[in-house]
């Protein structure tokens, strides 16, 4: 089973939306929490295992004005951090085949 480049949110993680579209991601199994800005929230909501990182970035560019070209790097770093901390993973090939 190979990993795809399609990030998928850990379903146990809670997205706590706060004011002004900022949010906290909270993993109740580990008690880890990270704060995130509106772009992070938008990325999180698109991490469904169906969209690739590139898909997510292009959607974000459309929804947020003034998204800089460095957005791909930043979003990739954000997704990596989430993955390292157990908040997200990469979808597996088989699941897509099953779908």
């Amino acid at each position, binding site marked *: 089973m190979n990993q795809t480049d399609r990030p998928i949110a850990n379903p146990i993680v809670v997205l706590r939306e706060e*004011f002004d579209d900022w949010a906290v991601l909270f993993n109740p199994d580990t008690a880890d929490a990270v704060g995130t800005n509106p772009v992070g929230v938008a990325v999180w909501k698109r991490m469904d295992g169906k969209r690739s990182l590139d898909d997510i970035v292009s959607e974000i560019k459309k929804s947020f004005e003034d998204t800089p070209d460095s957005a791909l790097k930043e979003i990739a770093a954000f997704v990596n951090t989430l993955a390292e901390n157990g908040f997200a993973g990469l979808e597996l090939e088989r699941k897509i085949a099953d779908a």
Partner: protein
Amino acid sequence: MRAPRSLTLEITARCNLRCRYCYFFSNPAVEYRDLPTDEWLQFFDELGSLGVMKVTLAGGEPFIREDLSVLLAGIVRNRMRFSFLSNGVLIDDEIAAFIAGTGRCEYIQVSVDGSCAEVHDACRGQGSFEGAIRGIRTLQRHRIGVGVRVTINRKNVHDLENIAHFLLDEMGLSDFGTNSAGYMGTCCINADDVMLNIEERKEAMATLLRLTVKYAGRISSEAGPLTDVRMWRRMEEARAEGKPAFHNGGRLTGCGCTGNKIAVRTDGAIVPCNMLAHVELGRINHDSLAEIWLNSTVLNQLRNRHTIPLAGFEFCAGCSYIPYCTGNCPGLAYTITGQIDHPSPDACLRRFLEEGGTIA
């Protein structure tokens, strides 16, 4: 914040003990009845949808509920963590194994008020010490975090050294917390018997300060003699040296809790805090928690309490501690003075000194 981060839920009005300083019982505002399982489960679904992170289960004695594992499963299903406030006596292997298996328990706070049965049972009833220690041992066997809370009162104030030795050296706990019997609930009825007088408060403060040196970092407090003496020493030092006002000084800033948590009474009333149990904001499963959280006039008044200057109270007239004082807990202010928007006389340094207290 669109919804509270955490809630304290009094899931039962029943208790196997009748402690002489229990804040929970003997409150005329409270209807002492248990809600059925389904009501709590429905409410947990609402909490889950709001992204609440944690609930603290209290009572009464939460372990008395026969459906506790069903309630915990509802909390886990809704992606929350939980903790307990308990007397420890009813904790057995079966429920401890269940709790450990969830992986979601932050800690279980068990009250231990003496180094031996004679002292502990004086206020909590015969057999309660043995039961509490058995409960703690059970939790330790199942590797569940235990937080011990010592409520300092007239019966155990002379036993504090032994209590620290017993909990930290003999039982091997990493730390414990302290508070003291406060003028609330059943304690109001037994106040003369259980609440510390000035001399005893002085003794508790001196002993605790000594013990915090001996057991560095292992004795904590959020209220009670240790908190008071630490705060009061800072206030006295600032006053003597003419330091600028503390950032939260001079106004009723003593309670910041309404910014991130809320509570539910055993009868389903939503209240700002268990210490303000008479302030009904709504009912679970009838009123929207999010709506109350954002728009309740009463809750917002409490949140704005920090704008009320101490200098406006006759109680504080002429006090040189005003720039450094926060007025402390509104719950105690209410039970003592009948007003929420008032400094708590219990935490008033000037009054303590006038009555013969010392903090040197």
